[in-house]
């Protein structure tokens, strides 16, 4: 459980989709002019990520991974469909977005009013496909971990876009050099925010404090229990 929680927190801060990997920058730059629309798009991203990543996780583990087909019988165990993963992931994302759009429109018209126009934009938002690809690359061991990662990434993205939208609303009243106005200053601001977010990288997520009966868990751990609380954020070091 603790591990799941740390995946979740990590996905929000130190592995933030925008500030650490620049995923979903297109819509991030295009839809961050006002806080209101940013909140809408951010919420839609959280929603879609949390839905698509677990689906893609199942797809990856029961269809695409080498040996994933073994549930169909021994003779299928040797098949490796992983070369199809990009196409499958993007197809899943596109169709789920479509499906979600229809369902939301039918059953929650109020929500549709708020999210509706953003949903189609999301199919080509890199952070959604990026979520699926990172899930595949990091090979989360349970669907719960994968979902926690997806939800955390979504929240991270939400925080990023709402924060930049708020700054952009304010910066309209500042004297930005003319050639930097709009896009240029947004890039630089995002860069500076990214630098700030890097300091989350040094956080000790407490993985070192596993109970001693779970000795095996230390396999994934890089911290030593002897570390004191104060040294846990080593901002200046990395």
């Amino acid at each position, binding site marked *: 459980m603790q591990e799941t929680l740390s995946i979740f927190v990590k996905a929000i801060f130190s592995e933030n989709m925008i*500030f*650490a*990997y*620049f*995923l*979903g*920058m*297109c819509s991030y*730059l*295009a839809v961050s002019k006002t806080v209101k629309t940013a909140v809408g798009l951010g919420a839609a991203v959280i929603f879609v990520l949390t839905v698509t990543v677990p689906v893609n996780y199942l797809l990856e583990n029961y269809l695409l991974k080498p040996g994933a087909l073994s549930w169909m019988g021994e003779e299928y165990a040797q098949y490796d469909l992983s*070369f*199809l*993963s*990009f*196409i499958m*992931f*993007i*197809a899943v994302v*596109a*169709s789920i977005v479509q499906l979600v759009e229809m369902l939301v429109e039918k059953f929650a018209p109020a929500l549709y009013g708020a999210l509706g126009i953003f949903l189609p934009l999301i*199919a*080509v*938002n*890199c*952070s*959604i*496909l*990026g979520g699926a*690809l*990172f899930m*595949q*690359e990091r090979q989360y061991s349970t669907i719960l971990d994968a979902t926690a990662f997806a939800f955390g990434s979504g929240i991270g993205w939400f925080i990023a876009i709402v924060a930049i939208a708020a700054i952009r609303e304010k910066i*309209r009243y500042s004297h930005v*050099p*003319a*050639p*930097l*106005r*709009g*896009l*240029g*200053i*947004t*890039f*630089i601001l*995002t*860069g*500076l*925010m*990214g*630098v700030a*977010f*890097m300091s989350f990288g040094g956080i000790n997520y407490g993985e070192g404090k596993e109970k001693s009966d779970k000795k095996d868990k230390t396999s994934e751990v890089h911290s030593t229990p002897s570390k004191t609380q104060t040294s846990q954020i080593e901002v200046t070091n990395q």
Partner: protein
Amino acid sequence: MSETVEKVKAPGEPLFSKKNRKLITDPLTDNNPVTVQVLGICSALAITVQVNQAIVMGLSVIFVTMMGNVVISMLRNIIPSRIRIIVQLVIVAALVIIVDQILAAFLPDLSEKLSVFVGLIITNCIIMGRLEAFAMGNKPWPSLLDGFGNGLGYAGLLFIVAVVRELLGSGSLFGFKIFGDSIEKTGLYSVGYVNNNLLVLPPMALIIVGIIIWVQRSRNKALIEDH
């Protein structure tokens, strides 16, 4: 993708007519996909730490935009409009898989470094943007040039960012140590020069792009936004 379809009339004109040349040269400067059209920043900036990664990424994107544009342009009259987006996605995804497999087979070390970012070419907005805005309405040849131009504009920007970051951040270009050895303290390092480690951190890529935009827009006032 809200741009209106740009039509290029090209009956009977030479292959490299002025208009066609413009398709290539425009995206390099005044209509650069990254700094002006604001497309496709997503997948790329994380891999601009080293120049050769940036070049391979740039070449992959050029290949995918070109081929994607050509294929879609050839199919443009028979693609049912209702499933247009998904058809485009499928074709782009297939092309990206081809690139990914070829990289994994012939450039394994680079392919490992690029990891998920090759896959993310699929959702690179440049590609979908050009397919929707150009290839759906133009013949294959202009589409090919348009794809090439936009891919090149993108690759060029990646290259510039990567050169700055690798040279100032790691003191090397293409992995060759330009300023001497930072550990043995030879060359420039012997007089106290140190690498700017900030530049190898991902956020600096954004700041460099911001500065490039600044330079570009102060030279071309037409591009300046009024907030």
